[in-house]
């Protein structure tokens, strides 16, 4: 049993490290992508031993150090426990949500077959949705614990937005669960290794393109990223529900934003784009369509799968940064209208249509 705990601890430690690194990379994308889209260069001054890394040192080393060493002042009249608790309640669920996403097939090491998923649950999808729902508490607590009426309004609006789009997210995931017949993420990814017609990888987006678009929209609205970031309202409310948090607490809210980008990107990859699957790569090597086979050692296959997963997650994070810096912010009543009157009926119709198609095809 201790070996099991040890293996789980190593996998979890690796995934948490990757998540923090991804948060840093997405923060870097945010600055560099926005800079080049706005025809400027962005941050590039901080360097370590002359290596500036095009702003990477700035985002990954200088920013966290700056946040950690700033004064952590608490406004008057707040409940100190709630004020400290709010960023923690926001940060913790998204960390554990990413841990349920599979990043590889099995690793055969030391006579054991280790499933490359930090939290291998057979109800993985429900677990991730539950954790994402928990982060609503952090938003409400942050707004309430700030003793600032604009913070409170920002927090309440933020939580109303998050719960409205959770419905659309949940329903688009229901469509994917129906397609694969399982809630387990690793089974879903393995099922995407089949080839349609002998040559096309059976990725989820080919079966459910509408669910992909719905999930992308609902995911971006759930994580309160532009164009849905009115609760944060960068140019209006300064920072909405996390105005009164400084130093490490602000760093936690800030990192939560980017880790949620990683979670949404990870879920998009896993359910719609094959997760860790490389097209035509099976456990013993490449099996190309025309009968060409390339045998590869096991460790290389595992490394290719992990790299493929990371590349896809980084691509979807980049896509979310791109969308953020392209579209203008939409108004709050338009946002809630889109969630309740647009996405919810469309995703319900998608679920029913999927059921009809699958049952008709089965008959």
């Amino acid at each position: 049993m201790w070996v099991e705990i040890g293996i789980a601890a190593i996998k979890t430690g690796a995934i948490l490290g990757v998540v923090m690194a991804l948060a840093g990379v997405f923060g870097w994308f945010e600055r560099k992508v926005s800079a080049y889209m706005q025809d400027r260069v962005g941050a590039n001054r901080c360097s370590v031993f002359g290596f500036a890394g095009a702003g990477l040192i700035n985002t990954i080393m200088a920013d966290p150090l700056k946040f950690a060493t700033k004064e952590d002042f608490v406004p008057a009249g707040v409940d100190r426990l709630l004020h400290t608790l709010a960023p923690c309640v926001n940060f913790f669920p998204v960390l554990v949500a990413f841990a349920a996403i599979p990043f590889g097939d099995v690793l055969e090491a030391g006579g054991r077959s280790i499933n490359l998923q930090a939290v291998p649950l057979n109800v993985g999808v429900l677990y991730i949705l539950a954790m994402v729902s928990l982060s609503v508490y952090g938003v409400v607590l942050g707004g309430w614990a700030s003793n600032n009426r604009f913070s409170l309004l920002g927090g309440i609006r933020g939580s109303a937005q998050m719960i409205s789009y959770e419905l659309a997210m949940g329903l688009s995931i229901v469509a994917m669960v129906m397609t694969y017949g399982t809630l387990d993420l690793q089974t879903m990814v393995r099922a995407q290794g089949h080839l349609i017609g002998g040559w096309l990888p059976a990725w989820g987006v080919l079966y459910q393109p509408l669910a992909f678009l719905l999930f992308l929209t609902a995911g971006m609205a759930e994580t309160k990223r532009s164009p849905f970031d009115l609760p944060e309202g960068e140019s209006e409310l300064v920072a909405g529900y996390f105005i009164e948090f400084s130093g490490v607490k602000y760093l936690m809210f800030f990192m939560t934003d980017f880790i949620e980008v990683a979670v949404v990107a990870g879920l998009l990859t896993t359910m719609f784009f094959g997760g860790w699957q490389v097209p035509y790569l099976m456990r013993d090597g490449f099996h190309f369509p025309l009968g060409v086979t390339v045998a590869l050692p096991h460790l290389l296959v595992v490394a290719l799968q992990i790299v493929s997963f990371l590349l896809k997650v980084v691509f979807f994070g980049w896509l979310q940064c791109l969308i953020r810096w392209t579209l203008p912010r939409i108004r709050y009543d338009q946002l809630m209208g889109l969630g309740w009157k647009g996405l919810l009926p469309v995703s319900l119709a998608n679920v029913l249509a999927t059921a009809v198609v699958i049952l008709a095809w089965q008959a």
Partner: protein
Amino acid sequence: MAEQYLPALVTFCLAGGLVATFAVLGKLLGPQRSTPLKGDAFECGNPPSGSARERFPVRFYLTAILFIVFDVEVVFLYPWAVVFRQLGWFGFAEMLVFVAVLAIALLYVWKKGALEWE
């Protein structure tokens, strides 16, 4: 059966440790020079205009209640989605009636204007 949740427990402990480290780090590393002005609420330079513990629109409560109703519907859709192939057309018809009742409820709420001006 319960052993499959052991990695979840390990993850919770590790992530909890990380979050606690962050929380403690702030108190340790930052200076502590509090002045009365730093304690005021931030309103873009204006003096704070009163307590934050006042009323806010009841429309948010309405949104939360509607969310509960439709979230329970989504929760009921999940087990059906996993086994619906075995249940066939009969199960689909039952689920269609269920979703139709709630769709009529959504339409009623829409027409009554509960989804407006949020």
